[in-house]
């Protein structure tokens, strides 16, 4: 039994605004011996607060700040009968779905008042979050005018812009010409790198009948990216090892469907003397027996990124999107409301039958930026960079 007792309270428990919620914990030394508590460390909500939704699923809190000197100290002494209180303010994210949540203090380290075997835990405190009010983002607020002292930039004459772009392009070409002729710069650079990025998403606000979709999911986006200047191509290879029975024709159908969905649609652009019209993004799923980026179990239906239906050629393209790092786009994902799944106009991460959008290549774009130490944008294949 820990020496300290943790008692929780909150001024307001009903109709609470997530971002403004205040939760207080009072620690009292109920033993006859002095006890220790690192108040500084215990002030990080993510380290000590256990938050659950109404289905008892853990609600993840933002990570704590990097430990500082005070975090690493032994902590302060609390004498028998003495108390100390900590207020936790605004630790619930505003994007949390309205409804009932339970919160308790849970310290499982000596600095936090407990131990792995005997954690210091308070009673649960139940709060009800209210739906977010206010103006919908992106909607113009009627009658809202800029303040008189707001700075309004003076507009340049519209004919100046094309002249400026024309001159700038000529100067750029001249610079590239100098690089080629005087410094021997050739467009023959090919570089590759393996990427492995953890991805998580939280789905909320699933409508009745789909409540099971509410939750936090995690996976790893893994691929090898090759930026190929001679061919002006960004090639993304994902090696997949299959477990289970599948025919060569079914495997070929997967490959065709995936590559048709994801290839020749977008390119990566940056200002460069080489591949000035961008690097075409080409994906390549390769089936291997070892050295895989992902393992896919073959079954009768597609049930997630790691379990594909042998005869399915639609949902597998969506799951391949997750392998590239794309997030889902139905219900509310990481606070963004996308509406129902499989909308007629939804992109592939909403409706697997449709093509992807530029944002679905964001992990690839960022990987290319890392590989080249540059900033890329994603542009439709049919547009110029």
């Amino acid at each position, binding site marked *: 039994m820990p020496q300290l007792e943790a008692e929780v309270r909150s001024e307001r428990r009903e109709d609470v605004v997530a971002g403004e919620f205040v939760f207080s914990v009072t620690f009292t030394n109920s033993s006859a011996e002095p006890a220790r508590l690192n108040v500084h460390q215990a002030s990080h909500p993510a380290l000590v607060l256990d938050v659950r939704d109404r*289905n*008892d699923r*853990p609600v993840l809190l933002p990570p704590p700040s990097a430990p500082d000197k005070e975090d690493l100290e032994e902590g302060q002494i609390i004498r028998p009968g003495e108390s100390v209180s900590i207020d936790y303010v605004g630790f619930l994210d505003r994007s949390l779905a309205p409804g009932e949540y339970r919160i308790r203090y849970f310290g499982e380290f000596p600095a936090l008042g407990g131990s*792995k075997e005997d954690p210091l835990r308070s009673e649960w405190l139940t709060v009800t979050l209210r739906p977010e009010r206010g103006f919908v983002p992106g909607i113009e607020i009627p009658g809202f005018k800029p303040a008189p002292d707001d700075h309004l930039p003076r507009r340049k004459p519209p004919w100046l812009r094309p002249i400026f772009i024309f001159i700038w392009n000529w100067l750029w070409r001249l610079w590239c010409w100098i690089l080629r002729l005087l410094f021997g710069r050739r467009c023959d650079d090919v570089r590759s790198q393996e990427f492995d990025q953890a991805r*998580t*998403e939280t*789905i909320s606000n*699933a409508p*009745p*009948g*789909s*409540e*099971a*979709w*509410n*939750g*936090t*999911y*995690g*996976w*790893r986006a893994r691929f090898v990216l090759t930026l190929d200047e001679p061919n002006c191509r960004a090639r993304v290879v994902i090696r997949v090892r299959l*477990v*289970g029975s599948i025919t060569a024709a079914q495997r070929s159908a997967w490959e065709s469907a995936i590559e048709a969905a994801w290839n020749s649609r977008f390119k990566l652009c940056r200002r460069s003397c080489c591949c000035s019209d961008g690097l075409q993004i080409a994906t390549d799923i390769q089936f291997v027996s070892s050295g*895989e980026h*992902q*393992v896919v*179990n073959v*079954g009768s*239906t*597609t*049930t*997630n*990124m*790691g*379990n594909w239906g042998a005869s399915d050629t639609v*949902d597998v393209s*969506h*799951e391949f999107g*997750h392998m590239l790092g794309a997030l*889902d786009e*139905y219900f509310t994902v990481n606070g963004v409301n996308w509406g*129902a*799944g*499989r909308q007629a106009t939804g992109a592939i991460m*909403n*409706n*697997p039958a449709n093509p992807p959008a530029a944002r679905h290549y964001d992990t690839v774009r960022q990987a290319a930026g890392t590989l080249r130490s540059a900033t890329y944008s994603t542009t439709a294949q049919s547009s110029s960079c």
Partner: protein
Amino acid sequence: MTLAASLTIDPSEANTAERFVAICRLINRGDEGVSVNVAPLSSPSLALEIRDISGSPVLLPPPPVPPATAPIERLDAGQERVAEFAGFLPSWTEPGVYRARCRYVSGPDEPTFSDWVSFRLTSR
């Protein structure tokens, strides 16, 4: 609650994640038939809850895009619906002892949970 869930994991110990197979059973223990939405049993991401030895959740990849209309099945008294999840454990899972339970979430009511079942992923 007339519905009950049970879970078996086979084998209980393996050296690769893909060898584990989870079988989740949803049983109607009532005296009358009930209609059940089987979508929550369609994916391991929806039907399984996994924790590591410290109690932290093991996140599974996202489930597929839900169907436009919920698939409803009739479960007569005493009847069960079995969902089998081969290779439910992600390939990047670190070796260790884990526990899992089957959950059936349908509607705003409390989910139906099975008991926890432990299994061990050993290093290759």
